[in-house]
């Protein structure tokens, strides 16, 4: 398919759906498809047993069960009334949670962490919706700032992209944990929830929110988006650091502080990673300097391979 026709078929939301990323994803059609497949492979079977085609298990008949669900063949052989249960297969429901707190506005390159996060969110939404699954969006800082309820179809993609375009890092502080706790009862469509944030929040609070969602039957993926400068602290001269989110000011000698800073930063990330690992959930670290398509496709390919029992390398 010529690239021009494919490009023209997409919604005109290039502010968040970066053409070069989509081009790369489209150019790597196989990768894109596998990426989507990766998501699909990661979906959980619905815990609601139903009458779909995939057999799940037998159970003893209980009064009130529909008689049509009694397996008469078993009754004929064993004179026991058992009911056949099937796994209900539903479409993928993807909830994209993007942190729009002030700290996400930090940038040392030409784009901020928020820019990078919304590009990633838009890309995933596009991939999922293209596969006729459902996707929804939540923008938050210390509370929910914008929301697009899960749905499918092209209009949904347009709505998500519009909300992402509209969003901007505001004056709120990062409070992933409390927002997740608040959202847990409101996310009715269980599915995969991907949280894009720098997670500059208390690790325990974040993990409390994560556990709340997991208990609600959601699979959670935390994507930590950091600026490369935040991971290296490579400031060349004496600096007066002016904290975002009202964190005050501090004059520092970066060379003297670097070692301890990096230790603190690594410890924070490790704590998140450990917490997520304990729940068998994915924790993905990204810096805004990394090519988004490569990062996403690599992650999804690894996830697919893991689901199929292959190597995750």
């Amino acid at each position, binding site marked *: 398919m010529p690239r021009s026709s494919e490009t023209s078929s997409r919604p005109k939301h290039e502010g968040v759906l970066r053409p070069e990323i989509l081009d790369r994803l489209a150019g790597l059609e196989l990768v894109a498809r596998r990426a989507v497949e990766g998501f699909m492979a990661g979906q959980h079977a619905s815990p609601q047993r139903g009458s779909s085609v995939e057999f799940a298990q037998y159970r003893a008949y209980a009064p009130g069960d529909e008689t049509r669900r009694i397996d008469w063949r078993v009754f004929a052989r064993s004179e026991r009334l058992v009911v056949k249960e099937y796994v209900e297969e539903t479409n993928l429901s993807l909830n994209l949670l993007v942190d729009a707190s*002030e700290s996400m506005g*930090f940038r040392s390159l030409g784009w901020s962490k928020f820019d990078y996060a919304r590009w990633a969110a838009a890309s995933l939404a596009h991939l999922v919706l293209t596969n006729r699954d459902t996707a929804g969006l939540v923008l938050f800082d210390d509370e929910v700032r914008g929301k697009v309820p899960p749905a499918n179809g092209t209009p949904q993609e347009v709505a998500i992209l519009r909300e992402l375009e509209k969003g901007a890092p505001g004056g709120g502080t990062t409070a992933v944990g409390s927002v997740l706790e608040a959202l847990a009862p409101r996310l009715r469509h269980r599915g995969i929830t991907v949280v894009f944030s720098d997670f500059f929040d208390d690790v325990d609070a974040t993990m409390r929110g994560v556990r709340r969602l997991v208990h609600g039957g959601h699979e959670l993926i935390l994507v930590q988006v950091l600026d490369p400068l935040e991971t290296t602290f490579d400031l060349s001269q004496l600096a007066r650091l*002016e*904290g975002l989110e009202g964190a005050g000011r501090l004059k520092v000698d970066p060379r003297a502080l670097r070692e*301890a800073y990096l230790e603190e930063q690594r410890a924070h990330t490790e704590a998140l990673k450990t917490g997520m690992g304990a729940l068998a959930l994915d924790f993905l670290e990204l810096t805004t300097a990394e090519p988004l398509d490569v990062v996403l496709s690599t992650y999804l390919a690894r996830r697919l391979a893991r689901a199929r029992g292959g190597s995750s390398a």
Partner: protein
Amino acid sequence: MIEGFQNPGLLAGVALAAVPLIIHLFNRRRFKPQPWAAMRFVYAAYKRTRRRVQLENLLLLLARIAAVALFALAIARPYASGDSPLAALREERRDLVLLVDASASTGYQSDVRTVHAAIRARALELLDDLDGAQGDRARLAFVGERTRLFPWTDPADARSILDALEGPLDEGADLAGALATLADELEVEAREGLGSALEVRFLTDLQESTFRANVALGESDEDAPPPALAEQLERFDALGTTLEVEDLGPRVLRPQNLSVAALTPLGEDPRVGAPFEVAVEVTNHGDQDVLAERVALRVGDERLPSQRVDVPARGSAEATFTVVLGEAGRHALVASLEGDRLGVDDARAHVVDAPPPLRVLVVNGAPAERIEDDEVGFLIAVLEPPTSDSAAAAPYAVTAIGAAEFDGSDAPIDTSDLIVVANVGTLSGSTVERLEARVAAGATLVITAGDRIVDVVRWGRALTGDDGAGLLPAEPIQVVSAPRRTSYYRVAEFDETSAELRYFADESRRPLFTEVPIYDFLGCEPLPGARVLASLSDPRSSPLLVERPFGRGRTVLWTTSIDRAWNRIPDSGKTFVPLVLELFDAIAPEREEPLNVGVGSDLTVTLADFPRAPVLVDPRGTPAPIEGAPTEREDGRWILPALSGASLARAGLFEVRTEDGLRVPIAVHLDAQESDLARATPADVEAIHPALRVARAERDDEPAAERPEAPRSGELWRLCAMLALGFLVFESLWGAYIGSRRRNHA
């Protein structure tokens, strides 16, 4: 703690220690604003590292401040006293200047040893007190007529230098000159910031003459200029230094000493074969009369019978010897005493010159049988008088020839010292040329007039040349004659101060020269450069005797005759004889001066023949080659390369010897003043200037007096510099360590 600073002005440099602090504070204003999201990590890291980083930076800052401050302190050169808590850290260096009195008087045998030996021993003792390992330095100066000032050395080298001074110098001691030389050097060192606490000691016999011009012996004259020694001590005072004088001389104030103060030939210049007297003056510088002191005189290798003289205390006596010289040339006379505690002045040498007879060539222009009629009869009679003393050589060796012989090539012009051309009417060109060459080389030409000179103008032109630069000192014009029966001319004026006519300056003798009739003379006009010694009473005041230099020699014109034809002078023996002798003595070519010089004087020696491989033999008989090539003089004599004062630094008899066997004695005299061993009192010396202090050094047989501890510089600058360096090194290493650690964790 710190008593003071050598360069207190430079202490202001300590303020530079604030520079690192200012830079530090200035840097704090250069923080670049940077928005930051992950402040939680920054705060946590800051909380963890704040104390450590502050401590690291503080150490760095303190090291820089300390380095700068200590460098500034080092330049200011702090010093501390012995009781300071920093005393153990002081630089214990001593700078000792030793002025060693090396004058001849220190050769005095004081007791078992000479004063010089005592001075040497004391100098060695002082040098032994120094510690070269601690940086102690010494500077030696031998004080004589001139000062031998050596550079700063370590004590071991100073001892070697002292060893080079084998004995006293045969000189006096110019203390003011020595101090001036030393003060010049010390002032330069002070200007260049090299000066330090100095200890200056003068080891001396305290001879009065060393301090004479400065000792307040009598009433002081307030109008008199300040003494030289006091001036130099003023300079020392300005340098913050005193002169410690150590008295190592004899115990008595006026040690007994006899000396040969003078050795003087009496009468006329010695002549070969003619006895002459030599006076030997013996001086007693002590307070006791000396009776029957034996005085000896040696003439060359011959020792004359000694004489005994009584020499009163603080007085002199004279012994007179009669000496006869057997041959011409320079002869050494050495007078000596029996010997006393100071040997250097017990003998004195003197060189006399017995010249060979002056070679006089007399050219007779008008010979005659009778001496009264002969042109040069009276002249030769005066120059070669009959004598009963056959041994005595005549002062003049006269050769008389005729005018015709004079024009021949065999005429002994070139071997004559004095040529008299008497009434010769014509002279050939070649003869005139030979005369000019000889006179230019140093001979003297005397031309006298007479009736044989017919064509006066032509005669004159032949001798004066066309430009008047020839031999004659005056241009002849015409013969002037007076009518003999009625009148005559006489000498109207003469130069009474000239050596030629000084004899007649006395009023009793003046008429002998001014009242003698002169009837005829050659009227002349003196030429440029000529000097008229006597002029006549004619209206033109014509010259009678006129002379002019010509090359190295000179010509003299006597404008009348030397026989009785034109005047009555030859008839008057009382006039003619002294006139000839005085004139010839004065106009004779200069003789070489006898070689008598003071110690340390430069000397030029002239020899008759080419000196082959000349050597200078000192009074001890040690020969030393005379370096350099001799130069030939116009008169054919040879000049040796100048003998420097350093090569004539001993009193006594030197000798120049050549391979050809030539021996030329040179007498080198000790300054007679050095024989007076009278000593100044410490009080007199200390009265000269407050910067002068006299200490009596103890002797071996005396209990050692407690000496004040030698001043030590007590400087701390080296310590400060080392500490500063240490802080700099620490700062570098510490900075590098911090930087490396912080980079590694980047």
